[in-house]
């Protein structure tokens, strides 16, 4: 059994004031919404995180379509906008603030980018010490109610942790799905997954297409 600690946090963009981490990221004001959100939410969350990850996945629903659109609308001549049209670029400021270096995989698989990012994260839990982060930016431009970042921390540790942060919850993941069945909800896209996390309290979520089942750690 694998544990997933999930943190979700909304963020405001553009920032109304200089962020606390501004001195760490060169030209922070040029970051696009996704890059800004990742750094901002990580900064808020870091006191809750016990140790740095061994592997990091950036799962990007909608890829960088908001920035792609802005790059074109602004005349397609801005280098600072163009660089953020690559989802991998949002890793750079995040890693600077994390003060971390290591393997990073950027994936997109709409409409199941978040789900398949978690599924691939499970693949990198190769030993007892492994700790995989799956980071996802949910953008208003791509249908989310607000700009938000989710951080799924995957580990082989099944001892439930207590958190001081209200937006953090713990789930358990089964990677071998049994045939018999406790009540399950099969979901086929990220939006349903999000709704399930928000609303459902008793059912477990079954994503056979991506090879895992998830339930709340009670």
């Amino acid at each position: 059994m694998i544990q997933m600690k999930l943190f979700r946090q909304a963020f405001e963009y553009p920032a109304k004031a200089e962020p606390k981490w501004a001195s760490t990221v060169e030209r922070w004001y040029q970051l696009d919404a996704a890059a800004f959100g990742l750094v901002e939410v990580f900064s808020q969350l870091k006191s809750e995180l016990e140790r740095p990850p061994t592997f990091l996945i950036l799962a990007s629903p909608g890829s960088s379509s908001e920035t792609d659109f802005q790059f074109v609308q602004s005349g397609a001549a801005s280098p600072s906008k163009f660089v953020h049209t690559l989802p991998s670029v949002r890793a750079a400021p995040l890693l600077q603030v994390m003060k971390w270096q290591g393997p990073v995989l950027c994936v997109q698989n709409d409409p199941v980018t978040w789900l398949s990012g978690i599924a691939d994260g499970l693949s990198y839990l190769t030993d007892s010490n492994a700790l995989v982060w799956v980071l996802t930016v949910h953008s208003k431009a791509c249908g989310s109610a607000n700009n938000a970042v989710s951080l799924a921390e995957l580990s082989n540790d099944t001892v439930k942790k207590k958190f001081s942060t209200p937006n953090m919850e713990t789930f358990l993941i089964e990677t071998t799905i049994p045939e018999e069945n406790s009540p399950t909800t099969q979901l086929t896209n990220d939006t349903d997954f999000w709704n399930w996390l928000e609303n459902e309290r008793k059912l477990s979520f079954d994503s056979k297409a991506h090879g895992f089942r998830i339930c709340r750690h009670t």
Partner: protein
Amino acid sequence: MAWISGFGCTSAAGRSKEDFWQGLIAGQDHSRPLNFENWPAQVTVPVPASMKAYLQPRLSEESQKENLLLNLLHSWQQLENSLKSTDQLTLRNGKLGVILASTKGFIDDVIWKASVPPALDTISPLLTEFLKQAELRALRTTCVSNACASSLSALCLAEKWIDLGLVDNVLILAADAVGPFVVQGFSSLRVLTAEKTKSFSKDRSGFYLGEATAAVLVTKERIAEDGLWVRSVAMDAEGYAVTRPSQSGDSLRRAIEQVLPANKSMNLDLIVAHGTATVVNDSVEDQVFSQLFYQQGFKPLITGTKWSVGHTLAASGALDLIAGCEMLKTQKVFSIANTTDVDPSFQCSYLTADRALPQTPTLKNFLVTSLGFGGLHAAAWVEKIS
């Protein structure tokens, strides 16, 4: 344990892997003028005239999406046709994973006409359409967007899926196109050259863009006689800067160190370097190769492909992988034909245009390196097993 059991590609050299390979060994630079008239009408910002001579045109007049899809299917057909009929059946009926590596190759058809940001990414629907038209059933699919390190990062993920037994075979697809979006973007970054792509040259001034698709089959079992074994593949990110690696090359070095044999017997025969011909990138690659190999007494041959078919972005790693595999299969090497004078500050020895190529190189292995925006780097070591 994973094997490269087949591949196919299209590039500016033509619509086959043979065209690509023959162009490399014949020293052919396939750049030719662009025809901007066929680009989306919405483009209003003029492309600098100095670039027109060396950028790659689209391979056909269809829309970008149709063009790339057709070429991806063509790359897949080459690959499938190279397999025995029994292996074709095993592949189609077995546990298959498919990964598409791309950056902005599919965006021009959508983005210039959009009145709001597209809700879904532009790459995933292409993968769905590819699977439908190729009549392939995949147990697992995803799209990797690690910038210009996407192909090798996809190979990392493919190896992981196979190691864990999630699938038996993985088809890695890679595709990127030259359109106004990337031309405008890379132009704004001032990395496009008005000269030729002269990797590792003292007068290098950047690259021209290239358009390519590739299909590489990675299998759990060895099914091809060639015996191309992926000894190891790794990726690393440093986040040093958005568009360039750190001067120290720490992240690229770590990626390469992870794929070196455990006993450090670095009898490496050949490197297919990323070689973007930008001042910083080439310098960092030279420094890392020097520290890891040349200063240790190992002197692998170093070459690259971008001088011939341009920088094909996410597909570049797949093309470099294919070029390396062809070198192992044919025991022939090719030079960086646009480069004659290597940067005098460089420590390594490159296969330049004026250097006599070894006639009987006895190649057993090669290393491929990729450097991506965001400071994401990757390396793969492939060996020929008798």
